[in-house]
């Protein structure tokens, strides 16, 4: 694309486009900040809220932790536990599966990739409802372990594809060389292959963590009594809750995640998402 003609007109068009989309991307974030820190009389308690409030306050934030907001700490903790379980499992199950798949002959490998790919198409609701029945019987209902096991379904295939793409690009000789030099299978795998695949492992970990942090469907069905943060925000913004609580918690949930997303963007390439699906 670099060889396309770049006249002054095109430069203007690019900058106008960039400006428009930057505005659209940042506008909702601005609204969230305004609702969280603006005086309620100028935001939620007026028919036409001020586009730029003149009074700012920290009171919304402090009063968020009353009422339904008292559950914030436990919800935060539950979200955290679940996200780390999901991301950890994605690496443990996913890395080994990705390595195994990169060793398998074409036909069988494609079949397994097909099965994994097919599992990403199954709607969460279709799985969540029967799982909630099973978990009730097994005592996993409302626990972070049950929720994590269920959420794993949305992240596992993607993690496998992501790490498989990276593993396939490693030179085969490295591993053969290590084996010839007397390294055992495990040594070659964990000492040679794993460190080389670290960027894709980090990407898979962060992506899984983020998807679990964000996940709503499984959480609302499998863990409604002791909710995760997204469910708490949902409860706070629905009829019985307080919209200011919802907005403040939304901001608290969002800030660390935006930071993580920017970190992730260093590791994640669009081509990762497409590996495993291509071919």
């Amino acid at each position: 694309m670099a060889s396309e003609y770049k006249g002054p007109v095109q430069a203007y068009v690019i900058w106008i486009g960039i400006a428009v989309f930057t505005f659209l991307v940042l506008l909702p974030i601005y609204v969230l900040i305004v609702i969280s820190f603006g005086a309620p009389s100028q935001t939620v308690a007026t028919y036409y809220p001020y586009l730029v409030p003149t009074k700012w306050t920290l009171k919304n934030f402090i009063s968020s932790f009353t009422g339904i907001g008292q559950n914030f700490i436990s919800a935060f903790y539950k979200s955290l536990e679940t996200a780390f379980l999901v991301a950890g499992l994605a690496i443990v199950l996913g890395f080994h599966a990705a390595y195994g798949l990169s060793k398998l002959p074409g036909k069988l490998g494609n079949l397994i990739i097909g099965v994994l790919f097919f599992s990403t198409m199954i709607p969460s609701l279709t799985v969540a409802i029967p799982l909630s029945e099973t978990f009730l019987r097994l005592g996993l209902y409302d626990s972070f372990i049950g929720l994590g096991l269920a959420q794993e379904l949305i992240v596992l295939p993607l993690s496998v594809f992501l790490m498989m793409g990276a593993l396939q690009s490693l030179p085969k000789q490295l591993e053969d060389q290590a084996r010839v030099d007397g390294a055992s299978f495990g040594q070659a795998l964990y000492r040679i292959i794993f460190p080389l695949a670290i960027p894709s492992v980090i990407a898979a970990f962060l992506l899984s963590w983020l998807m679990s942090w964000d996940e709503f469907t499984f959480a609302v069905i499998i863990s409604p009594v002791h909710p995760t943060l997204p469910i708490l925000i949902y409860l706070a913004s629905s009829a019985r809750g307080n919209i200011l609580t919802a907005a403040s918690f939304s901001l608290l949930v969002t800030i660390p995640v935006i930071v993580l997303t920017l970190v992730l963007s260093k590791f994640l390439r669009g081509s990762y998402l497409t590996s495993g699906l291509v071919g």
Partner: protein
Amino acid sequence: MIATRAPLRLNDRMIAYLLILPAILYVFVFAFLPSVQTIFGSFFLASGKFSLYNYQFVTSSFGYSPIVNTFEVTVIALTVQFIAAFLIASLLSKPFRGRAVFSAIFLIPFGVATIVTAVIFHNMFSTFGGYMNSFLVSIGLKPINWTGGFWPPLIALILADSWKNTPIVTLVLLSGMVSIPSDLYSQAMVDGAGAFRRFFYITLPNLAGFIAIALMIRGISEFNIFAMALLIFNRQLLTTMTFSLYDTINPHPAYAGAAILLGIVLIFATLIMLYRSRYVRVV
């Protein structure tokens, strides 16, 4: 060397099978068994009797509008997201100063949780204390009742969903655009092809594989749009309908809703696969 390698390979393959096994078992237990349970369960009553009653119950209490609404949302949202993603990806595929910064900014919505997006847009598009109406009034237009009529709630939902999900489409399309050799474009320009012809005869055909992937990823999630619809959309979608049927004492009507959802998603996925196998040659 050769003598030691042959048995080693065989061993390796056994270990490869063993390493894949846990992931396969996981998918079997947590994806396929529950799906089968949903499909079977949808044909039985709580008493254990085979019956089509669950489906009759669903269609008699909700009609076919959840299916129609789901299709409307999916088609319009995909159109909006692909147009926006094409524009952003073609901007980002050009070299200009600060490109890395803007790539990062355009990725921000991807990191904002779905429910947070729903809360924000719920506030922007509410009739009481809504920022969109404030803006409309401030430029001298009439406020709109965003929860009434056909288009207003649909527009609010589509905008919220597209804001959140355009980045992932952009990411996939951009990685495709970067892979198109620039010679193709310079050749076409020498031959006198304008921007539109270059887009339709070079960019689109070369992107077919990436478009199929983005359609697959987004299309399936679009049918499953749930959290946002709960907060922003006042009509029923297949997901919200199934959720309102959900009951741990008698899950069978919800099974019927979930089975319909599964069926529609699988039909959609098959169509995309057909498109891929027909139009994508070089992969």
